[in-house]
Structures are given as C-alpha cells and as structure tokens.
C-alpha cells in the first residue's frame, strides 16, 4: 500500500517517523515536506492510495488512486474538499481535546486570578500587593461563574466536564442539535447565540471554522458580552473579528482574553511573525500563546497513534475511525 506523507505537518520528520513506527501493516511510504515542489508532488500523489496531510490545495496534481485522506490534525479548514477526487474518505484525528480542555481551564483560572500580573509583580518588584495580607486588590475566582461554550464538540464537552467540577454553571451553543448535554445545563442553537452571550462570565470558542462561524464574534456580539467577561479562543482566529476584538479588549468592553489561534502565522522568511496586524501583545489583559494548546506530549501521542491505527485499519479493511466525510 502506497502512503504519501506530505506538507509541513504530515511530512515533518518526527510526525512521519513516529506514525511509521506505530504502523504494523506493511506500507510503502513517500515523505514530501515541501508541497511547492511539484516535480516530487506529482509522483507522490499519482501513486498514493493514502495521503497523510493536513492540507489539500485546489491546484494539487491528480491523485487518481487516492482512497483515504488522513489528516494528522483535527481542523479540516486547510483542505479544499471540492478538489479531492470522487470517493475519497477524509478522516481527522482526536486526542487533542483533553489537552485543549486543560488549556481552557488554565487560562480561565489565570485570567480570573490575575496570575500573570501578580506573579510578575512579585517576581520583578517584590510586590506583596496581591490582595492578601500585603493589601492590594482582591483577585477573582471561577466558582459560581457561568461558562458559555461556543461549539459543543469533543473539546467543548471535555472543557464542560472540568469546569463543572469547579462549581461553574456550563451552557453551550452548537450548530447542530445536541442529544446528550453532558455537563452543560443548557444548549442553545447557534442561531440563538445572542441570547447566550449576555449570560456568560467566560466565553470559550471551541468551534470549527466554517461558513456559520467565520466572523461569528463580531463587534456586535462582543458588545453583548458582560464588560467583565473573558473570551478564550482555541478554535480558529477567523471566528473572531480581529479589529473588533482588539478594540473591545483595549477599551475594556470585555474583561480579558486568552488567545491561542491567530490571524497571521509565521513563514520561513518571517519565523517570528507577530500573530496579528494589531499589537495584541501590548494589551495587559490578554494571555497569548502560539497555537500550542494541543501541543502536549500526550496529545501528540494520541493523535499519531490515531493516524497509525487508521492506516492499519485501512490496509486490513477493518474500518476507520474519525471519518468526517466521503467525497
């Protein structure tokens, strides 16, 4: 079975090598990191029955034998589905949801407890004014707070489960109807998000990027949030309006944010690219991380094991997990 690992994720040495180390069935791998190298991309796609990649572009060469496109990531927003051949099964991976849920709890706690400000002031200036016996303003907590999760999938559910143990009230909004509410007490249709937002002390964006979610958190909806509310985005940056969110944070229309996903990403010529055209890094009420909420050792192992399990499953013909669709 010919398998092509392509692109900056699937062909990354530690990704391809780890997956190949976990696969037990016999496969013939091709590894191509640079998908701009068409001399090598043409044969890699012409032969492959399986492609492991998080990206599929409109102008990709023909892939007549392709049966399985296995993404090593969860999001399919880099995959141009209409340009895939007919009859291709597209699978993604999970195993990141627990890591991302940890990030959501960590950041909602850190924002509420003002951890960075207090720890930095104590470290740099020896300031004891963190609200304790040394005086200064008290900080917040999440007990009794209402957490609203936009996009109630695997990540949303894992976040809900953990937040509930902290005594939070969890509500959620989802595109499609939800049969099992899990730890959420109420589920809104995404069309009624405007009713949910004013209730929330903390809003977690855990949705995928699609036509219904692109630009969802615009200036008007940010304005529906409480002025003290916190926004956590681990979904995709484009779900939030870049300028409106910046203005809301700068002007104190909302209380703060933790952002892990961005409007701009680095490239080889600009490896330290700022993640936005706007100076988010100068806002004191923003915690920012470089798209790494899922980059834990455990999540990596669970995801790559999931890819390997599907390659083996496809070769043996005994079924695939995490099937998203078949073209």
């Amino acid at each position, binding site marked *: 079975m010919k398998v092509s690992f392509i692109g900056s994720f699937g062909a990354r040495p530690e990704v391809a090598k780890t997956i190949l180390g976990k696969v037990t069935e016999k496969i013939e791998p091709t590894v191509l990191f640079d998908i701009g190298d068409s001399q090598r991309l043409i044969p890699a796609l012409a032969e492959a029955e399986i492609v492991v990649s998080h990206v599929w572009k409109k102008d990709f060469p023909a892939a007549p034998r392709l049966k399985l496109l296995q993404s090593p990531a969860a999001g399919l927003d880099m995959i141009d589905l209409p340009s895939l051949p007919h009859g291709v099964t597209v699978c993604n991976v999970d195993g990141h949801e627990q890591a991302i849920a940890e990030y959501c709890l960590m950041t909602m706690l850190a924002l509420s407890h003002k951890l960075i400000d207090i720890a930095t002031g104590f470290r740099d200036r*020896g300031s004891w004014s963190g609200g*304790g016996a040394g*005086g200064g303003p*008290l900080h*917040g*907590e999440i007990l009794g707070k209402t957490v609203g999760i936009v996009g109630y999938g695997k990540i949303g559910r894992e976040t809900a489960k953990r937040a509930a143990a902290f*005594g939070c009230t969890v509500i959620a909004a989802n595109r499609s109807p939800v049969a099992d509410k899990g730890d959420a007490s109420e589920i809104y249709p995404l069309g009624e998000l405007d009713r949910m937002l004013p209730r929330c002390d903390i809003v977690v964006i855990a949705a995928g990027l699609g036509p219904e979610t692109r630009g969802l958190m615009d200036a008007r909806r940010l304005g529906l949030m409480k002025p003290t509310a916190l926004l956590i985005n681990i979904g995709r940056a484009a779900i939030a309006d870049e300028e409106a969110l910046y203005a809301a944070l700068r002007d104190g229309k909302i209380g703060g944010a933790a952002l892990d996903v961005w409007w701009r*990403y680095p490239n080889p010529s600009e490896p330290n690219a700022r993640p936005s055209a706007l100076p988010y890094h100068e806002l004191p009420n923003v915690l920012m991380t470089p798209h790494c909420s899922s*980059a834990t050792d*455990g999540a990596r192992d669970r995801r790559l094991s999931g890819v390997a399990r599907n390659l083996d499953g496809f070769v043996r013909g005994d079924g695939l997990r995490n099937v998203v669709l078949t073209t």
Partner: protein
Amino acid sequence: MKALFLGNVAADTYAGIKDELPPSLECEVLDDPIDRALLPAAARDADILVSNRWFADFPPAPKFRLVQSVATGVELFDQASLPKGCAICNAFGHETAIAEFVVMAMLALHHRFFQIAGEFREDASWAASWVQSGKPHGEVRGSTLGIIGYGRVGREVARRAAPFGCRILAANRSPREKDADVERVYPLSALDEMLPLCDTVAICTALGPETTGLVDARRLGLMKPGAFLINIARGQVIDEDALFAALRDGRLGGAAIDVWWQYPTPAEPNRRGSRHPFHELPNVIVTPHNSGWTAGMVRRRWDEIADNLDRFCRGDSLINLVATI
C-alpha cells in the same frame, strides 16, 4: 459586649460586616500599624478579639471570651496570654479559592505556560507550536497528584483535579476517610512511600510539630526527577535551603510557591520571601501569599465571622471552634 478588631485584615473585616453585627455589640478598631499606646485601654474591657494575632508582650486582656481569627491559621495567637475559658475560632471560605490556585498552578507548570506565553508576547516566538515542530509541553492528564494534608483544601483540590484524569493520592496526619476521587490516603508517617509516585506534590497541610520541616532534602530527593511542587500551606513545611538547591539544580521540574519563610515588614515592604533568590529561577511561579484572596473568599469569610459574633452575642454555640483555653 465589646469587640476589638485588631490589625489591617480585621479592620477590613469590620468595614465589610458592620451592618450585619448586633446593635448591642460595641466595636473598636485598631488598624495597622497598631498604636501600642491605645492598646491597653482597648484590650482591658473587650470580650471579643477579632484579629490574626495576639502576642505575648501585648497588654492584659482579662475579659476575652472569644478570639475570632480572621484567618484559618491561629499560630500567631499566644495562648498563654489568653484568659482561661476563652474560645479560639478560625474562619474558612478560602478552600475553594486555594484549590483553584493549586489546579491552576499544576496546569501552568505542566504546560510550561509562563515560559511559552512570555516568549510569545516578548519575542513572537512560535517555538512551542505545532507550526514550528516545537518540543511538546506536558499535560496533567494521566499524571499522579499527591496531596499532603487531606483537609478542607486538599479535598477541594482532589475534586477539581479528578476530571482531568489524574491519579490522586493523599497523605494526612490523622486517618481520613477517602473520597471516590482519591486512590489512597497514606498516613503522614508513610509519606516516603507516596512521594516517589507523584508527578505533582501539593502541600495543603497546616503547620504543626509534625509538618514543620516535613519536606526536607531527603524527602525532596524521594520525588521523581522533574516533578513539580506546589506550596499553599506555610513556608516552614519545606526546608528552604533544600528546595532552592533542588530547583536551581533542576532535580525538580519546577514549583509554585505562595507561602514564604519571611514576610515584609513596615520598614521593608518589598522584602523577598526567602533568603534565596527563588524569584530568579525560571521554573518557579512565585505569588505573594494570596492564593486564597479572592473577592468571593473574603465575602464567604466575612459571613462566617459575622455569624459567629452574632452567635456569641446571642449565647448560641460557636462555629469553627479550634480550642478553648
């Protein structure tokens, strides 16, 4: 009936509860810095002391019948200076806030949060992301958390850590019934068995003869290389020199320290919490003894204190009784 509110925390408490107190209760407030010239008269006829301290060199207080601590720890009350029959009560309401801090610190340490967020903000470093093949960071799931001191705080920590998929162990001085979240509660004397199993150790015990210096160089050496230590209890539970050496030399993976071996004084308000520069170590999260100081905690604690003063004035049984002299 008269109550003396002594010190800054007591003064804040008074401001927060004065409208709830019985009208018959006369209140006097002596804020920090305490004017020692005013103290003898204030102490002489007070029935109730609301404070976090009463030192041996304080003037006589022959009528004290209730000492209501504004905190949970009562070690700063010199019991020999209190009259016979005086009740000492403490206050809680902090346990959920501190449990939030413990889980937050555990997550931040495993996820290398300060380092990653700091480098991204300062230098736009994407090194930690999937995009640049960075070294993965850790997660809490599947790790073992050991809680020393399975009291109110320890239980709240366990309850919050459980849904993360942690294995939870605990050690306690007195035998404790374990909750479903906890795999085993060791007697404190068997702490040495628990320590080598833990990826994170959270110290949530009170300070007492059995816990002073409990976590010394030998016991730190029993911890897994790279394990994390969180202390929200009292500085003196840990050997200061040994912990600094273990963190500096990288034998421990990191620590979150909220409680210290020394505290600021009026002359030195920005005094460091230790004679060692813990604040210069990159793998240590340092906070100024405020893990429990949330707005919610203060409200809960004030409510408990107001309730107890009301009970005392009505002659009802007291809550949170620690000792009777």
